[in-house]
C-alpha cells in the first residue's frame, strides 16, 4: 500500500475512533477488546495472518459456546436453528463476536476485511464429526474467468457469421481465458 493510501486509512480510522456514533452498536467491533490473530509479542501494526480460521459467535444464530473434547461422541442430529459451536482446543482459535449482517464502518473505497463465520466442514460417510472451519476455507471463490470464457466463445461464434478476423480474436480470447482460468489461484 502506498504512503498516501496508508495515510488515508489511518485518517479514516482516527475519525472512527473519535466519533463513537459512527460505529453501530452491534457492529463487529465489540466494546470489549477482542484478541485477533495478531501474534502477542508482535506490534499490532504488523500484518495479520489472514488465513487463520477465526472462531466466533454468530449472534444472529444464537450460538451457545460449548467446549467439546475431540473424542467426545456427538449427538447425531444437530438442531440447526440453535447450532452449537465448538471450541476446538487443538486449533486454539480466539473467540470473536460478529454479527454478520451489520454494516462494517467503511467508506466507498475502503473497508474492513469481512469476517468469515465458522461452519462445520462436511462429514465423510462413517465419520460423525466434521471440522470447524471458516466459510472462506470451504466455499468457492468468485472468479471472472467463467464470464471471460463465455464471452470469448460468443465472439468466436460471431466471427463465423461476420469475418475471419473476429474468429481469430475469439480464438485468442478463448485461449487466454482458458489459461487464466487454469492458472487462477483457487
Amino acid at each position, binding site marked *: 500500500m502506498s504512503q498516501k493510501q496508508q495515510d488515508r*486509512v489511518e485518517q479514516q480510522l482516527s475519525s472512527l475512533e473519535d466519533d463513537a456514533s459512527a460505529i453501530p452498536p452491534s457492529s463487529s467491533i465489540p466494546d470489549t477488546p477482542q484478541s485477533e490473530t495478531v501474534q502477542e509479542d508482535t506490534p499490532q501494526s504488523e500484518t495479520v495472518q489472514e488465513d487463520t480460521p477465526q472462531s466466533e459467535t454468530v449472534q444472529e444464530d444464537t450460538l451457545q459456546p460449548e467446549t467439546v473434547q475431540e473424542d467426545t461422541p456427538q449427538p447425531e442430529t444437530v438442531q440447526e436453528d440453535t447450532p452449537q459451536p465448538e471450541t476446538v482446543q487443538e486449533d486454539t482459535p480466539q473467540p470473536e463476536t460478529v454479527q454478520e449482517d451489520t454494516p462494517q464502518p467503511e467508506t466507498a473505497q475502503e473497508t474492513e476485511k469481512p469476517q468469515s463465520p465458522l461452519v462445520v466442514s462436511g462429514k465423510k460417510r462413517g465419520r460423525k464429526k466434521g471440522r470447524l472451519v471458516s466459510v472462506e476455507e470451504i466455499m468457492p471463490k468468485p472468479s471472472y474467468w*467463467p464470464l471471460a470464457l463465455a464471452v470469448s466463445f460468443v465472439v468466436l*461464434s460471431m466471427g463465423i457469421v461476420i469475418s475471419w478476423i473476429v474468429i481469430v480474436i475469439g480464438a485468442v480470447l478463448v485461449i487466454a481465458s482458458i489459461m487464466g482460468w487454469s492458472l487462477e489461484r483457487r
Partner: protein
Amino acid sequence: MATQTIGGTTTVVRRRSFSESYVGEWITTTDHKKLGLMYIFTGFFFFLVGGMEALLIRTQLAQPNGKVLDPQTYNQIFTMHGVTMIFLFVMPTLAGFGNYLVPLMLGARDMAFPRMNSFGFWLLLFGGIFLQSSFLLGQAPDSGWFNYVPLSTAGSSFSPAHVIATPGMNTDFWVLGTTLLGISSIAGSLNFVVTILKLRAPGMSVNRMPLFSWMILVMSFLLLFALPSLTVASFLLLLDRHVGTHFFDYTAHGDPLLWQHLFWSFGHPEVYILILPAFGIVSEVIPVFSRKPIFGYTFIAWSGVAIGFLSFTVWAHHMFAVGLPSIAQAFFATSTTLIAIPTAVKVFNWIATMVGGKIDFKTPMLFATGFVAMFLIGGLNGVALAVVPFDYQVTDSYFVVAHIHYVLFSGSAFGIFAGLYYWFPKFTGKILDERLGKIHFWLSFIGLNLTFFPMHLLGILGMPRRVYTFPGNLGWNELNLIASLGAFLIGVSVMVLFYNFIATLKHGKKAGDDPWDAFTLEWDTSSPPKKYNFLEIPIVRSRRPFYDKKYPETADWKHVTH
C-alpha cells in the same frame, strides 16, 4: 492493507475489490444460489420475449388474410418463438431451480464445480443474446425450431437454384446459437450429475433423495446423451453451408432425412428434458399441500428413469409421414405408446398422494393440480399421434401445435409456476400474494384452454402449421379468433405474475423460513439461505428429513424402513 488498533481492537483495512461490490458480486459469483436466481431471471426475461413473439403470431392469425407481418418476418417470429421458449425459457428456468435447490435438498454447500456452473450460466446468457441479436440484422433463424434441411441449406452457393433455401446468416445464427446453448447445458448437466452422485449428505441414499433431484439427475443424463446428436447435426450443416460438403444435399447424394434423424434423436429426448424437472417440482409440491408423504416414491423415481431410456427410442414418430418402412413405423408407434405407461404411473401416484390428504389449494398446489389435469390432455393427444394412420392425417397440422403446447405450456410452464410460487419464499424471504397468484392461475388456465384446445379442431379441419395467413372460406376463422383471444388472456395472466413479483419484492409479506410446513432439507435453512447453506451438514434418516426434525415423535425413520 493496513492494520490499526481502536480501543484495543485490531482491525484490518484494505481496498475493496470490484468482486466485493454489489454488481461485482453477481458478475463473479460462483454461488449456486445466486447463479440459480440469475438463471431464473434470465429465463423469465426470455419468457417475455418469446411471449411477445407468440402474441405477434396470434395477432397475425386472428383473422383471415392477416397483414400484420410479412411472410419472411412471420417465419422468423415463429421460429424464434420456439427456440426462445424451449432453449431460453424452459431449460434455463428449470436449470435455475435445479441450481438453487439441488445442493440445498441434498444437504450440500454448493455444486460440485462452481466455476463451471458460472460458465454455464454466462454462456446461456450470451448465447441467448447472440440468437436474439439476429433480429437486429434482420436475419433471425427462419426454418422452424427444428431447422429442417433443405430449408436451412445455403441454397444458391452450393445447391441447385430451385431448392428453397437460406443463403443469409439466419441458419448460421441458429446453428451457432444452439451450439453455444448446448455447451452451456453440457456444463450444467455434468455439474448436476456429479453433485447428485457425490455431494449428498450422510444418510441420503439415492433411495431417499427428493424426487426433484431424481428428475434433475435423469434430465442431466438425457442432456449428456442427446445433445451430441444436435451438435453433430449442426456441425455438418455448418460444413454444408460454408465449406461445400454435401451431407444433406440430395443432388450430391447427401440425405436430407439424415438431418431429421439426427435432430429428432436429440429433439424427442429434449421434450422429456423439458418435462421431467417439472414432474419433479409437482412431486415436491403435491405431498406438502396434501400433508402426506408421496405415494409410490420408488415408482415415481424409476418411472422417470424408464421415461429417460424410452425417450431415446421414439424419435422417428416425428417422421412417420416421410415414408419410413412399415417395420420402423410399427417399432416407433409401439415405443411411443409404451412411454405413456411410466408417465401414467406418475399421474396415478400424484392422484393417490392427494387421495385422503388434507389438501390445501394454495397457488403452488393449484398450478400442480392444473399441471396434472392439463398434461394428461397433452399426453393423451400424444398417444393419438403415435397411431400411424391418424398421424398421417394430422401431421404438420395445428393438431401437433396443440399437442406440444399442452405438454410444454400446461406441463413445463405450469410446473415452473408451481415451483416459483412454492420456492419464492425460500429465494427471497417473502411470500407471493395469494390472491394475485390465484388470479394468475385461473387466467392462465382459461387462457391456455381457449388458445390451444381449438387448435386440435383446426388441425383436424386441415389447417397446416407455420402458414403465415389463411383464406377466409375454410371454416377456420372463429377457431383462430378464439385462439388469439386466449393467447392475449395468457398475456394478461403473465402481467399479473410480474406485477405480483414486483409488488411482493417491494412490500410483500415476510415468509419465515418454512411457510409451507415442508418436508425437505432446503426449508431447513434461513430464507434466503446463508452463503454456506448449512452451519453443519445434516444427517439424513428418511425421505423427509426436515419433517423428522420438526416432528420427532412421528418421524418417518421411526416407522418406515427406507
